[in-house]
């Protein structure tokens, strides 16, 4: 799906937990997520802590969208 969105002309950032899969399928902008059952946040840290992580990751994703890349790039 990532590739088809990009192929259609829209820049896309893939936020995913299993980065090697994302690399294998061919996503170009990749932001590693936290965990498989909770990619964007960490409920173990409570609502507030979890939200902070989510906000940080989303901002990182927006940054990735604003960044020129010339190949697959993982935004650590």
């Amino acid at each position, binding site marked *: 799906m990532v590739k088809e969105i990009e192929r259609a002309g829209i*820049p896309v950032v893939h936020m995913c937990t299993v980065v090697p899969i994302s690399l294998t399928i*061919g996503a170009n902008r990749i932001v590693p997520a936290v965990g498989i*059952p909770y990619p964007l946040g960490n*409920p173990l840290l409570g609502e507030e802590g979890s939200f902070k992580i*989510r906000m940080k990751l989303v901002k990182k994703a927006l940054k990735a969208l604003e960044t020129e890349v010339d190949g697959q790039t993982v935004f650590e």
Partner: protein
Amino acid sequence: MEKKRVVHYINNFFAGIGGEEKADIPPESRPGRIGPGMALAEVLGDKYEVVGTVICGDSYFGENIEVAQEKLLSMIGDFKPDAFVAGPAFNAGRYGVACGTIARAVEQKFSIPVITGMYEENPGVDMFKKDLYIIRTGNSAADMRVAMPKIGALLKRMMEGEEILSPEAEGYIPRGIRVNYFADQNGAARGVEMLVKKMAGEAYVTEYPMPVFDRVDPQPAVKNIKKARIAVVTSGGIVPQGNPDRIESSSATKYGIYSIEGMDMMSPNDFMTIHGGYDRAFVTENPNLVVPLDALRQLEREGEIGELVNYFVTTTGTGTSIGNAKGFGEQFSKKLVEDKVDAVILTST
């Protein structure tokens, strides 16, 4: 001895009936061989005869698959075939799909050997390689003189009931069938041999090739994210409570587009996860862990992003075939383009 009867399918172009402007011609049937059928007859030799050729325009076939298939099957049946050849289609996509469709239909209806030929990137390959012997060809008709002898040779072996050898030996595209055989050396020895070659920088052939994935060049960066229209897509299986479209919890065959208009966050009262590939407990309590609506709305209010489109796109990623996922992506991306989306955040679990 009576000759074995072979029927050949080709498109209008190979039949010499015009080019793209004639691609809408409906099925027709002609006795004997035409165009590439000449080369086929030559390869097959005296014991076989190309008794008839059926022709259809690729566009007609693509737009009227059911009707075209039915008519062609009836025409093919009239020739009382012992075997059937379609194409080869090389890298012509619609022709490849037509060849695969009709070859499979002929095999199912008449239970006779069928064969076609395509370039490996022809979309017909992925659609039909499991069902059919597809001879691997070059990407254009210039390869006909190489491709047709391989098609003829394999077809003869199939008609004579001989054992069909490996894809490499026969020249067809691997069908994903495993065949047991006795190797000269055990796995450990073969593995070490490969490793030594790999370390020495020499060529070696893996016994377990990984699938090849295609690549897309990255789009240029978003110029001004503060003015951008952003959409969220997910493979994390978030759906409205009750899963109204009954999206599968694994091996999805569909995706959904659901409104988030006027919502400040993904409320667990409104949304649930049906994904069968992870522990759903956390996301059930807080779907924002997959669709980060709460964070995005805050950024929207603060002017950090232009605006969020008023829906998200969702399916289940686990076990879903690449073909299906690609199809979903192609379809919903059209909507994203129409809705002037500047950038997409795609989340996966």
